């Protein structure tokens, strides 16, 4: 395997990781502040992708499509927070899991009802299609590079939001002591709705960005949701830093595992067996990584007990 191909795969892994971060950041924020496990986060990812695909089909503008994804996901997020999620904060995790699982059923089937079962397609903008020459003579997809940059910018923005602004201060305060910030005159229910909508918007953005690479279809959010859970378990619940580290780790492990394992196995077994065993093992690699983290640090890399 050539170095160029390897670097390309590393970039792909990075792009995957950055997308996972957008999902995991929202999940971990919502868990950190409200103590809620939200399975419907994948549904919001799907809402973002469908909103973007519809807007792009209607106006032809990719920028408008991204805005539509952000707005639609945030709106649906706020809507389910106000109607359903709000009643779950004081419930146990089992109730949260079941209620948000019910939301997935409703969202998925409703989307199938409105848009049909066939996948939609979201084209990447002309300005970003094609490749760009990176230093070292590596050709890489412009669009994927843009995703990496957008993802890292969002990560930076999120750090600044939480570390430097008044809203961020309240979010951190909410993680530490809900009752106290309520007593200090902060309207917690508005804060909760805002955090939920923020997480939803991130999921929607991620869905729209990925939608241009893959197809936009019902159920697209579910594999990503579960990977985001793996990310959170590895990174530590409630930690944005952990989510970023975990996401990049999972993205790289998965992408590199899929390319390298079959090659590695072919050094000591015949080609077809190597492909079979290599790819079967590669599909399990991130879970093995998760198991490893659980053995050595059950609260995740950046988690506190």
């Amino acid at each position, binding site marked *: 395997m050539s170095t160029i191909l390897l670097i390309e795969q590393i970039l792909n892994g990075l792009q995957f990781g950055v997308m996972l971060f957008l999902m995991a950041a929202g999940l971990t924020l919502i*868990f950190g502040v409200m103590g809620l*496990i939200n399975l419907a986060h994948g549904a919001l990812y799907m809402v973002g992708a469908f909103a973007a695909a519809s807007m792009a089909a209607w106006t032809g503008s990719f920028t408008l499509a991204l805005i539509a994804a952000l707005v639609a996901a945030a709106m649906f997020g706020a809507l389910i927070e106000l109607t*359903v999620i709000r*009643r*779950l904060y004081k419930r146990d*995790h*089992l*109730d949260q*899991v*079941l*209620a948000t*699982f*019910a*939301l*997935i*059923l*409703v969202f*998925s*089937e*409703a989307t*199938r*009802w409105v848009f049909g079962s066939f996948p939609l397609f979201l084209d990447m903008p002309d300005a970003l299609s094609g490749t760009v020459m990176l230093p070292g003579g590596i050709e890489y997809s412009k669009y994927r590079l843009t995703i990496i940059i957008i993802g890292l910018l969002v990560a930076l923005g999120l750090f600044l939001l939480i570390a430097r602004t008044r809203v961020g201060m309240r979010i951190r305060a909410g993680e530490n002591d809900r009752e106290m910030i309520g007593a200090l005159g902060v309207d917690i229910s508005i804060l909760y709705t805002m955090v939920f909508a923020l997480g939803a918007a991130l999921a929607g953005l991620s869905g729209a960005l990925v939608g241009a690479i893959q197809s936009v279809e019902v159920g697209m959010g*579910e*594999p990503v949701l*579960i990977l985001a*859970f*793996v990310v*959170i*378990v590895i990174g530590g*619940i409630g930690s944005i830093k952990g989510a970023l580290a975990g996401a990049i780790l999972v993205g790289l492990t998965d992408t590199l595992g899929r390319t390298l394992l079959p090659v590695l196995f072919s050094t000591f077994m015949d080609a077809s067996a190597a492909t*079979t065993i290599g*790819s*079967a093992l*590669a*599909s*399990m690699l991130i*879970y093995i990584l*998760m*198991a490893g983290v*659980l*053995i050595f640090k*059950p*609260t995740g890399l950046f988690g506190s007990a």
Partner: protein
Amino acid sequence: MIRERYINAVILALMVIISIAALWMDEPFTITLATKAVILALAAVGLNLALGQGGLVSFGHAAYFGVGGYAMGILASHAQNYTPLMEVPFLIEGTNQMPVIWLVAVVASALLALVIGALSLRTSGVYFIMVTLAFGQMLYYFAISWPAYGGEDGLSIYVRNEFPGLNTLVPIQFFGLCFAVLCVVLFMVHRLNQSPFGLALMGAHQNEERARTVGINVTRLRLVAFVISGAITGLAGALFADLNRFVSPVMFDWHTSGQIMIFIILGGVARLCGPLAGASLYIILEHYLGGLSEYWQIYLGLILLFVVLFAKGGIVGGLARKEVRHG
């Protein structure tokens, strides 16, 4: 207020009455639906032990269901193709005998539950949910990418496996067999709940610290419960595969885990016959709502939301009204 014991008797009797009535009216499809409800209920009885009694919210029970299913699929496919499963170091042949298949399914899923449980029980609460979900999904992807037994397409078994003295292809006989298995398992779980082990498990659910203080090894206790739970669900998986004469990675899908959990919540958490009531209601909903609209899962989702938000306790809880002792 009705005693839970009477409700349980009524639920079990209803299953028998419905299938005998269906036999009498020559409606084999109804018997098959009842069989499906019984098998799915068995899977949920397994999960209920971990989730209801033990308070371990496992979102990955599809793993054991799938392993049970594949235990049947792999053994039966070797039997139907007359190929040995393994020749070195010693010969293992496939089989189409249900008792053997059940034993393999139970042992395989128990071993898997031992590994997954040992890892997952290092965590608790929301981590536990995510970790079990992730391990379940790992097996799903493995089943898809492993081509030897059908990969994504699954595996068809042409003839239902045999049970000594029965013709399992006759719907009522297969129903009777599954129902008998369910009753035996329910009885065992009932006895288990009353035993010191079951009481300790519930005690640890209520107050972990107190259980530790009186000298109970909570982690080991939970691990044992988790293994038994996985084994029961694995047995259900083997029966389910035999009902459909087909196994596929869908059995491993996390929607399957969610469904098994839905049966419990519809029927009533930690109620002995809750899973049976829940699974039956689910089958009825699937059958009738599915007939009304292709998008019946919207209604299922709304019903589930309603039950979770406003009607805790499910069917059995609603009828018995009394809180479960340890609730």
